[in-house]
């Protein structure tokens, strides 16, 4: 096991913040749309390049990346660590962000306050990348709040609409409450173990001598249980698992379409990442907590509820963007089912599904955004038959939806197959059946959307055919290429994801050895 230290890891969360602040400062002096568009796209493309470098070093060459902030070595200072799990999350985030940033140029072309969208989106990217990279649990809290506040701001971007204000307020109150409790959990963790660094937490929680490290009243392993529960519950809110899903349909449908693509494709990933980190990296295999199996069963159970809830609500919803929002709830259910299996195959299946879902959901929101923006309504019956005026957009929408359902040439099929296989391997035949039943139920909701948009209208409407901007076509083509590559090269992609699951479950001690090698 080798490590590499590079400024690239430190610059990953820093670049979007610097560019965001630069754009907002430049806006005071000049108002040049071309300049801001260029800066915005360049910063996301630079992030993508850095993400690809980290991907090459970590996933292909098998190294670990560490960057110590301020030159303070852990456990004294905060460090950014990239193992395989965080690398795949960073790659997803930077990839989706660079495509959405190209699309956002087209989307905001008539808006007066487009600069705010760019700045908030860039800082949101910084928050997400920080969540994925940090190796310190309090720093994780700070980045959660950063990503959270910018997410609430993205939702109320149309601040003259009452619905988006209410959606944002509800999400913000829930988020503030949960993250406040998360802060309390962090401080109990500090009182119990005497450290905040994830690697040191790993060692102390999995060894037998917690209380020998400090003399605090709370130095008792019993207090680890509320910390685990609160940490997981916060992760469930961010990723909208069943009892905490209430904010998602409003929030994701009221945001502007590029923001919906970001929130639906990426922000929920942050919650899944936190759940995997807290559950597997820090607590899994601890001698103090013997009820971890119950927790994984609860995750599978809540995941199944999510799958059924999402697919039933999709079938009756009239708002096109809310249909896709419920589809996010559905796919989060599949991902949590994979996490709950507890084998390396289950983890890799759920991570592959997460990757597929991010790309597919982003393309679906971008294509629907074109239609919704042109006709200025989201009601599916008002849009009936109008998809015929948009042949290219409908083609990309259909490809992305087939990708989400899991029709074989596209990548979504292989992740669901892997999930099915993971359940069969541990003997959970009922759960494996649930994967198939959930997928089958969801097909009706997706097909209703396509059918109503494509269905020949009763009244002839004389609307001219679409004339797509070259910017939108670039965004479409790049995401279509990714979707096709995910399907065609699935046999070489799946081993990469198997490595990730293997590393999380069986070789987790390497995460600690990184720190002793610096």
């Amino acid at each position: 096991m080798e490590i590499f230290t590079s400024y690239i890891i430190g610059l990953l969360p820093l670049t979007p913040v610097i560019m965001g602040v630069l754009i907002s400062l430049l806006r005071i002096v000049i108002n040049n749309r071309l300049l801001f568009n260029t800066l915005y796209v360049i910063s996301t493309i630079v992030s993508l390049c850095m993400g690809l470098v980290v991907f090459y070093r970590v996933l292909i060459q098998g190294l670990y990346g560490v960057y110590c902030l301020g030159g303070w070595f852990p456990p004294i200072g905060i460090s950014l660590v990239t193992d395989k799990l965080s690398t795949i999350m960073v790659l997803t985030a930077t990839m989706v962000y660079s495509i959405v940033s190209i699309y956002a140029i087209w989307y905001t072309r008539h808006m007066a306050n487009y600069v705010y969208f760019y700045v908030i989106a860039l800082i949101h990217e910084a928050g997400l990348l920080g969540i994925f990279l940090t190796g310190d649990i309090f720093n994780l809290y700070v980045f959660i709040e950063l990503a959270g506040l910018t997410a609430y701001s993205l939702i109320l971007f149309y601040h003259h609409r009452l619905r988006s204000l209410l959606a944002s307020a509800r999400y913000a109150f829930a988020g503030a409450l949960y993250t406040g409790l998360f802060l309390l959990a962090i401080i109990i963790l500090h009182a119990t173990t005497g450290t905040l660094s994830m690697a040191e937490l790993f060692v102390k929680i999995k060894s037998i001598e917690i209380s020998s490290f400090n003399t605090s009243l709370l130095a008792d392993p019993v207090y680890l249980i509320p910390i685990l529960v609160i940490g997981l519950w916060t992760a469930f809110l961010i990723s909208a698992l069943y009892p905490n899903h209430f904010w998602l349909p409003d929030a994701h449908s009221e945001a502007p379409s590029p923001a919906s693509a970001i929130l639906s494709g990426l922000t929920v990933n942050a919650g899944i990442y936190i759940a995997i980190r807290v559950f597997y990296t820090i607590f899994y295999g601890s001698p103090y907590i013997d009820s971890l199996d119950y927790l994984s069963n609860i995750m599978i159970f809540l995941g199944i509820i999510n799958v059924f809830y999402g697919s039933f609500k999709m079938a009756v919803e009239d708002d096109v963007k809310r249909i896709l929002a419920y589809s996010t709830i559905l796919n989060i259910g599949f991902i949590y089912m994979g996490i709950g299996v507890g084998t390396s195959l289950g983890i890799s299946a759920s991570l592959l599904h997460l990757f597929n879902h991010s790309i597919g959901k982003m393309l679906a929101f971008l294509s629907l955004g074109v239609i919704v923006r042109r006709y200025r309504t989201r009601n599916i019956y008002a849009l009936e038959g109008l998809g015929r005026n948009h042949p290219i957009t409908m083609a990309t929408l259909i490809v992305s939806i087939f990708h989400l359902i899991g029709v074989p040439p596209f990548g979504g099929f292989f992740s669901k197959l892997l999930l099915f296989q993971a359940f069969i391997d541990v003997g959970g035949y009922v759960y494996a059946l649930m994967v198939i039943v959930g997928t089958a139920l969801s097909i009706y909701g997706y097909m209703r959307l396509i059918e109503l948009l494509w269905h020949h209208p009763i009244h002839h409407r004389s609307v001219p055919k679409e004339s797509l901007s070259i910017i939108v076509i670039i965004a479409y083509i790049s995401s279509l290429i990714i979707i096709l590559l995910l399907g065609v090269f699935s046999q070489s992609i799946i081993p990469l994801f198997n490595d990730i699951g293997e590393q999380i479950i069986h070789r987790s001690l390497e995460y600690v050895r990184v720190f002793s090698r610096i």
Partner: protein
Amino acid sequence: MNNFLLNILIISLITNTLIGVYGIVFKPNIIKKIISLTIFNDSICVLIILHGYLGPESIAPIHILPFDAENKELLLSYSVDPLPQAIVLTAIVIGLAFTVFLSITALRIYEVSGSLNLHYLLKTEIVETVEPEVEVMEE
């Protein structure tokens, strides 16, 4: 005596936190929700400070005496843990950001709907006068 007072402080802080949670969940008025959120955050901050506090005879973690082994032991046993204070500074800043954001949201909600009752607004069917994804024209 001191221990007794500290226990009362801890109990009252935990009660405060619970009152904050109650206010955020059950009070319909947005301003009252924001006030409850502030109470909740600040009680947690004081709890964190209390975790680093060692008693009335504790000192700041700065060594003025010559730094030999005996003085080091003295410093370690009497100095306050600085880490919770650093955490609280960050938490206060984040709480401020939340309060500002939510206040502006409340202001906008009042301007648009004329009401601050969040529960009522969430229950009623909203008929939007503004179309979704409306284009805001160039200045």
